[in-house]
């Protein structure tokens, strides 16, 4: 097997085609992404969520510049670009949902993290709960990434509609999403198999309704049970709609088209801006959370480009107080070293309310850590899981 996802086969290449393609490649105006950047410029690729809204803050404090190429949250697209598109040739740092290192690490795309690198000053004080997780290490326990941000995903809801405490501190069972009469026809579920099928799987598993070994990596059999249940609920009219994008999440909540929705936490934040503070709550759950964490990885091909020190300086930044504070303020996402974030905010004269929110972000995450977590973006059985989930979507 070659090192390409869609490996080359011996094909007779039509001379005309090659000539035409090469001709176009060579024509002016189509020069490639310049390889040799100044060493203070780091080229990064991955999800844009890892970027602060104003990234120049980082440039100011580190003296580095980030040349960022964004992608969306599709693991397929991401894998394709890393493996087939050889982005390692041009990019130093890759940031995506942790879990990708299970595949990209052993295959030699991600470099093993040098935990003792002098620029990685914050590594030592970072809690194991953030750095020693499955999301940053492969199955053999080799450390590839540093933690960036993370969260335990659940669902947003209107407390008044489901009769829950308006302060949002109640632990809500997932059954409220799937089979409560209170929410019949008032539910929106994410289309993604990665998120929704594992959540349903967790619900069935936690309530002993199905035999599932690992709901984040279900076998075809297990996935079939999950899909069957979901199809049954779909037919019963439980779901008002299935959504796909962040904008949809916000709109469904702010139009009050639905009462409950498994969404990203910032969606509830955005909806509350439109509806009024704290009208929508992001749930603490009984059964557990879909856990994700973005990891930052260094590409093996970047190791000898002469800017490794700067790359590690950059990796270190993701664990710093400045990054922590802004990320939590802008999206409500937590990460390693929350305490440094609070420190930074205090030192830089943030308001008491902002600081309170930072602290709350940490408390909130810790409260979630008490429950089971699941989530494995590069699951072994992803093909089967996706396949079964299609039945639900097509039903």
């Amino acid at each position: 097997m070659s090192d390409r996802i869609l490996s080359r086969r011996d094909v007779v290449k039509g001379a005309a085609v090659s000539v035409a393609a090469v001709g176009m490649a060579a024509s002016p105006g189509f020069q490639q992404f310049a390889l040799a950047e100044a060493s203070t410029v780091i080229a990064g690729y991955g999800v844009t969520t890892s970027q602060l809204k104003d990234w120049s803050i980082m440039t100011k404090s580190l003296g580095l510049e980030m040349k960022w190429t964004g992608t969306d949250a599709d693991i397929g697209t991401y894998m394709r670009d890393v493996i087939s598109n050889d982005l390692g040739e041009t990019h130093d740092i890759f940031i995506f949902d942790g879990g990708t290192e299970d595949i990209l690490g052993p295959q030699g795309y991600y470099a093993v993290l040098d935990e003792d690198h002098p620029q990685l000053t914050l590594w030592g004080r970072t809690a194991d709960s953030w750095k020693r997780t499955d999301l940053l290490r492969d199955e053999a326990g080799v450390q590839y990434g540093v933690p960036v941000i993370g969260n335990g995903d659940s669902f947003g809801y209107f407390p008044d509609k489901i009769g829950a405490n308006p302060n949002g501190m109640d632990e809500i069972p997932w059954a409220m999403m799937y089979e409560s009469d209170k929410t019949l026809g008032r539910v929106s579920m994410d289309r993604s198999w990665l998120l929704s099928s594992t959540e349903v799987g967790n619900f069935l598993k936690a309530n002993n309704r199905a035999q599932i070994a690992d709901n984040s990596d279900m076998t075809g059999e297990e996935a079939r049970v999950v899909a069957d249940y979901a199809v049954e609920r779909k037919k019963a009219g439980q779901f008002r709609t299935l959504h796909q994008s962040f904008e949809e999440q916000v709109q469904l909540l702010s139009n009050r088209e639905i009462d409950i929705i498994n969404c990203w936490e910032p969606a509830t934040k955005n909806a509350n801006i439109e509806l009024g503070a704290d009208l929508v709550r992001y749930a603490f759950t009984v059964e557990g959370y879909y856990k994700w964490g973005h990891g930052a990885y260094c590409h093996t091909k970047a190791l000898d480009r002469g800017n490794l020190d700067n790359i590690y300086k950059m990796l270190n930044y993701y664990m710093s107080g400045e990054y922590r504070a802004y990320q939590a303020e802008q999206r409500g996402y937590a990460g390693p070293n929350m305490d440094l974030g609070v420190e930074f905010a205090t030192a830089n004269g943030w308001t008491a309310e902002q600081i309170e929110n930072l602290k709350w972000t940490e408390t909130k995450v810790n409260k979630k850590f008490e429950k089971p977590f699941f989530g494995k973006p590069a699951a072994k059985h992803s093909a089967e899981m996706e396949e079964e989930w299609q039945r639900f979507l097509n039903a």
Partner: protein
Amino acid sequence: MSEGALSAAAAVAPDRVTATASFWRALSAWRGWAAIAKWLGLVVLILTYVPLMWLAVMSFSGRPLSGIPYPLTLDHYASLLGDARWVEPFITSFVMGLIVAGACMVVATMVGRSIPRMRRPGGVLLIALTPLFVPGLTMGAALFIFIRTYLELRLGAWSIFVGHLVWALPFALLMVLVIATRFDHRLLEAAEDLGAKRWRRFWDIEFPIMRPAIIGAGLFGFLLSFNELLRSIFLRGSETTMPIFNWIMAASHQSQVPIIFSLATIVLAVTLPLMGGFFWVLFTRLDRS
């Protein structure tokens, strides 16, 4: 036919129609049909523009996704201008659009004026128009596999260009063909007779006649490229065009609606007079009939 048979002298046609037929005659002669035809179409046009107008209104609303355009604000435009991240993709898309437009104009003109002179143009035409029949995602994936895996070329702006050209050229070609097929080749012979060399014949005779189609080809090339996403996702390498930027932002866990709405409004505000002017010139100024 006897002579007498044809000499009947009645004011109304002698072969009278049957009763049912005359019912249909009367029904089809009703003048209201034209009005119905017109208004049904206009209703669909209204359906097209209600969302666009709504979008434009909402781009000034503080709560763009809700149903009510209130409170009014220019914040979204301010944040659009304040946020520099979209500028680079915008420039990439703009330049790409210009290059695709230029390529479309040249290739569509060259090919479009040659096809009508062929004896059997069916095959070439079918191949040329194939991309119209292939869903965008499929074409993107196919080109990706081909270029990246089989030709082992590094993707980048050039491969986006290929994807866009494959998408836009059939439209451009159709546009040129409409005029080229009706082009009277005797004009060229006349010019040749008057001593014009090939290039002069093209430049003095053919080009002015085909100009509206060529301009149209360029315009379509630009706008189709500027708005293209499905193929670009596959062929981008590490380039970012404007639609790719929007697509990435939609997954960034922050609402981009304000930016997208105001950007769409600006695009609308720019293309509306541009296209309007183009068609006005095409219909009112250049139409000699």
